């Protein structure tokens, strides 16, 4: 048995992708499925949409991260500034 290495795993993964793409085509051509949506009857829809969805989400998250990611002590600092004190923390409760 071949040793499990990073490279082998990736190769196996690519083989799976190829097999799935073929399987999808096979399903469309020979099984004539009653899919949930007509969109699924476009050849390769699931593969393309899966890829695109993932890519879009990553890019959107990356873009939003620029604005929304802050240092871990953001609120403590912010509050300190507001009060004109250094290191003033949340004193709720």
């Amino acid at each position: 048995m071949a040793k499990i290495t990073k490279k082998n795993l990736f190769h196996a993964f690519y083989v799976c992708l190829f097999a799935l793409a073929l399987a999808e085509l096979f399903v469309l051509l020979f099984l004539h499925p009653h899919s949930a949506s007509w969109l699924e009857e476009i050849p390769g829809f699931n593969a393309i949409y899966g890829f695109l969805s993932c890519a879009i989400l990553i890019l959107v998250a990356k873009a939003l991260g620029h604005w929304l990611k802050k240092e871990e002590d953001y609120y403590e600092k912010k509050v300190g500034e507001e009060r004109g004190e250094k290191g003033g923390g949340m004193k709720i409760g």
Partner: protein
Amino acid sequence: MIEWVHPGLILIFGAFLIPLFKGRWKQAYLLLPPTAAFIALLAISKGAFGTMPYSVWHFPFLEYELVFGRVDKLSMVFGYIFVLAAFCMILYALHEKSNREHMSQFVYVGSAIGVVFAGDLFTLYFFWEIMAIASMLIIWFHAGRGAKEAHEAGFRYIMWHLFGGIVLLAGIIMYIGSTGSTAFNAFSWGSGIEYLPSYLIFIGLILNAGVPPLHAWLPDAYPEATKVGGVFLSAFTTKSAVYTLIRGFSGCELLIYLGTIMAIYGIIFGILENDIRRSLAYSIINQVGFMVAGIGIGTFLALNGAIAHAFCHILYKGLLWMAMGSILFATGRSKCTDLGKYHLAMPLTFIFFTVGAFSISGFPLFNGFTSKAMTFAAAAEYMDIIWLLLTLASVGVFLHYLDLFEGLKFPYYTSASERGHIKVGDPPVNMVLGMGLTAFLCIFFGVYPQPLYNLLPYPVDFIPYTIPHVVGTLSLLAFCGLAFLLFSPLLKRTKTITLDTDWPFRIAGEKFIWFCEKPLIAFASWVDSGMKRIASHFSVFGSLEKTKSRSRDEPMETVPIGTAVLLIIIFFLMYLIITLMYGWLAP
């Protein structure tokens, strides 16, 4: 024949007996109430007390009637999953020594079951508020490291929920005022001022479901709870809100859009977050989004889908929180950037986390696959764009968990030598058993969903395992994996927090407190000193001198502002209840 027994009250009363037991006896006792509740449910569903639907436990209240036991298929399926999840979670929590933590967990679960069986709006509100307070206590009872953060977060949490509770109560009272009925059934919906009671009730309910922008309490507070507390919190508040939405607002179109937004919102914020438990909390918002969208579509298929998904979600999300809790238990850390490779020494935890991740991503043979598909089929019938967006979010779930694996650096390809120097190990046996049982249920309902489908309130004509569906799902997920491989360098975890919609409240809240502490107090002390000066003029009349006992410089006894605000809200709530009861209900 024995009387009908309320499964939720078994847990609530069971909670108060916990301090009577010690050591092994306590551990044995802890499993008794959930078992008893499960037996009660079995007896109910076998028709021991009548054929469903029926309602029992009516009590007179003012001119109205409280109904504690409304039994039909919808309340039974939620009752089952709540009790089942409670059993697994209590098993997981068995090693905890703190009585008060166990008690608040029991009361929390019991009140969530109370919400599910509530047949009228007063009972609903009653259990709703108990649930809010019990869950706050779960967060507050975080002792040791992180206790201060937990206390603060718990405070913000209860503020949100008291606000939601007041809105809900106002809506309920206006609703009763306008319709004269206290029954908890579907509310009328439309546009116009006459629907105001429905709108208020709606806002109260969606706040608990974690619908943006009213969701910020969820990722803020849940991760601050204890390892065990977080597991409980992940299941009951949002899912009891899902139940009430099904009961009250199924088919409300607004929910479709809110649910779709939730599903995508939860994913994007989950990816950005560094703290894994906070990331899991965002994942709750994402999953509840699918349910909320299903409720909005409102067809039998969609409602079945939403209910099945809630059922399965409680299991796999509970499992993920348990796995994360045991990583926290072993390492004391929960941030991706801090974790490194500790988990390598925790093979069982790793397996359970993987089962949870596969379930939530909807892989065939796991329960996410058999439940999510129904909502999606209903969405495709409803509108293409909604189906596309929900599918996008569902692919995103897999991306999110791939990203978490990457963040946790789980050993997909590490050599044995790297594992050698790590000392931590899998958690105590009860935690492993709790996770094992939950993982078993995740796979069981994935392989053999029929028992779940039989529980659903509407007839199920749905076969998940068809070749096209399996192939389609697998290729969606696999190509998502490919995109992840290509783009993952963009998603590097950073030592950051992510701003959310609680930003204005946190900042404005601080400004308000600053205003109270600085200008307001200054003004008050100015008035105070003025009054004292005037008083001192009178003191020449001799005996009055003694009343000026407190000098101006003597420090006054102060109460933390937060406590004062809490008290004000509680008094306001009591005032509201009393006024409305007497003003409205008295002839």
